[in-house]
């Protein structure tokens, strides 16, 4: 899960299944959108950064495994079809987008440095001197704060529990003051340089989307067919069991000819599936009654038919 500033939310938590990715990308491109798309799926999260309508990076985190670029977009397509995901779209400034990009995709200058072991003042001066574009991540085991830089000057602060960039450094200083706090320094190219990359030009999203659609449709069709087969099998088993029980009832009242009579009357009506049709059930029972009258008494015939009727109405529901 990525904790990122929300900026100006355009959409929040809309069903990802309703999204048609190529159309959405086209829209964002047309609107020169800057910001990020946050997809949240049951077991994965994806962040797609846009700068002036260009898709500068895509990252998919699936149970700790990170995919980027084409693989990330392909993964997002698949996960959208799998269902259960949500999408939020946040508009950010160009600079902040660059900083967030740095946080996720940037080059790691320092990683896991204990704050008490380094000269933080000297580090900040060094960053300023290097005109760093990027982000400082200060964290302990359970708390995190981010400081975004543009050309060595701080842009703003962000920490757990906040939803947007803050101008006050107090929370970041608090975390930095905690024992065991560490720091990561991540850098990236400037926003203008990042705009030279556009994944939408490198990846044919429409084709990718179509192939995913077709693959998912095939898969769904296969699953539906398998489910139908299982349903049919289960229904057939249920009807076979019912037929056996009806034969047992008939044998108890008529004798062994009862079983043959039930079998014959069902065969005359197209087999045991007739037990699912009200009209055919009536005809079946009438046929059994006609035959039973020649083999046993009226009262027993009525009792047997009542038992059969109850069994069928209880157990032969389509």
């Amino acid at each position, binding site marked *: 899960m990525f904790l990122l500033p929300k900026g100006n939310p355009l959409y929040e938590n809309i069903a990802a299944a309703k999204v048609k990715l190529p159309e959405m990308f086209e829209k964002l491109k047309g609107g020169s959108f800057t910001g990020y798309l946050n997809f949240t799926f049951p077991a994965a999260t994806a962040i797609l950064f846009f700068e002036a309508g260009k898709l500068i990076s895509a990252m998919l985190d699936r149970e700790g495994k990170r995919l980027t670029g084409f693989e990330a977009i392909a993964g997002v397509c698949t996960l959208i079809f799998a269902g259960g995901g949500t999408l939020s779209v946040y508009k950010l400034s160009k600079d902040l987008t660059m900083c967030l990009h740095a946080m996720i995709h940037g080059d790691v200058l320092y990683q896991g440095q204990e704050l008490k072991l380094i000269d933080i003042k000297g580090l900040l001066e060094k960053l300023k001197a290097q005109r760093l574009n990027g982000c400082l991540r200060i964290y302990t085991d359970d708390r995190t704060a981010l400081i975004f830089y543009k050309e060595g000057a701080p842009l703003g602060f962000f920490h757990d529990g906040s939803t947007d960039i803050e101008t006050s450094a107090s929370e970041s200083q608090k975390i930095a003051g905690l024992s065991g706090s560490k720091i990561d320094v991540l850098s990236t190219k400037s926003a203008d340089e990042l705009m030279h990359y556009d994944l939408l030009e490198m990846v044919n999203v429409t084709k990718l989307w179509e192939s995913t659609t077709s693959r998912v449709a095939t898969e769904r069709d296969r699953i539906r067919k398998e489910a139908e087969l299982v349903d049919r099998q289960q229904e057939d088993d249920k009807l076979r069991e019912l037929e056996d029980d009806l034969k047992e009832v008939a044998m108890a009242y008529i*004798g062994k000819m*009862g079983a043959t009579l039930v079998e014959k009357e069902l065969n005359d009506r197209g087999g045991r599936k007739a037990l699912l049709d009200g009209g055919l059930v009536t005809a079946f029972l009438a046929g059994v009654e006609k035959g039973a009258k*020649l*083999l046993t008494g009226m009262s027993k015939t009525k009792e047997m038919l009542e038992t059969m009727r109850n069994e069928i109405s209880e157990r032969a529901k389509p």
Partner: protein
Amino acid sequence: MAEISTVDLVQILFWFLAGCISFYFSIGNARVWTSISMGFFLIFLSQLYVIEKALDMPWTAYTQLEAIHYIIGTLSIMVMTHGFQEYYIFSRTLEIGGSKQAVYFTILGLLAGSSAFVFLNPEPQYTVLRNIRMIENTTWVFLCLVNLDMVRKIYVQIRDSLIAKGFIAFGIVFIALFLWKGSELYLQVYNWDNDWKIIMQNLGGVVTDQYMGRRDFSILVHDIAGMLAGFSVGGTFIYLVRLLR
């Protein structure tokens, strides 16, 4: 008024009861039973002539009526055989077809056709009547054996059903009927019957008194089996009514 023997009277009484019960049985049951029960009811109609003759009814002067009674007797075994055949087919294939009305109308049609045949031909003399009676007895004997085999096969097929014992009862009925009609046919074949005696008397001839033991025994079998047949038919249908209630 002509004489009627006690045996004939008891037989008629039994056949009357059997006829009523079987006719009643045919009303509320399946078509197969209609053929069987109507067959047994027709035996009563054929036997009715014995009483009509004893009571000296005016129409008994017409020998055509006597012929028709014998034909009804022949039809009765044919109709019930048809019923048992249908039941046997049912027991093997479980197929039931046709309607009860068809059975009733076919029987009426056969009776009408037979009557037309008798009335369109010359008035039957004693010899002709005896021939018709012999045909009746021959048909009975042959079809009783056929029905005995059919009843056995039906019983084997349905032996664990409620009605199976009813078919054992029918087996007993057909044994009694076979003996009843068979003993009479035996007497006719050897010209030991009463009709032949009368014919010979009319012709001025004499029937010899040979083999009297066999003749008397056959008459005894005829009388007892006749009573037993009527009794067993009535009993069988009462039993069936109770079973199929």
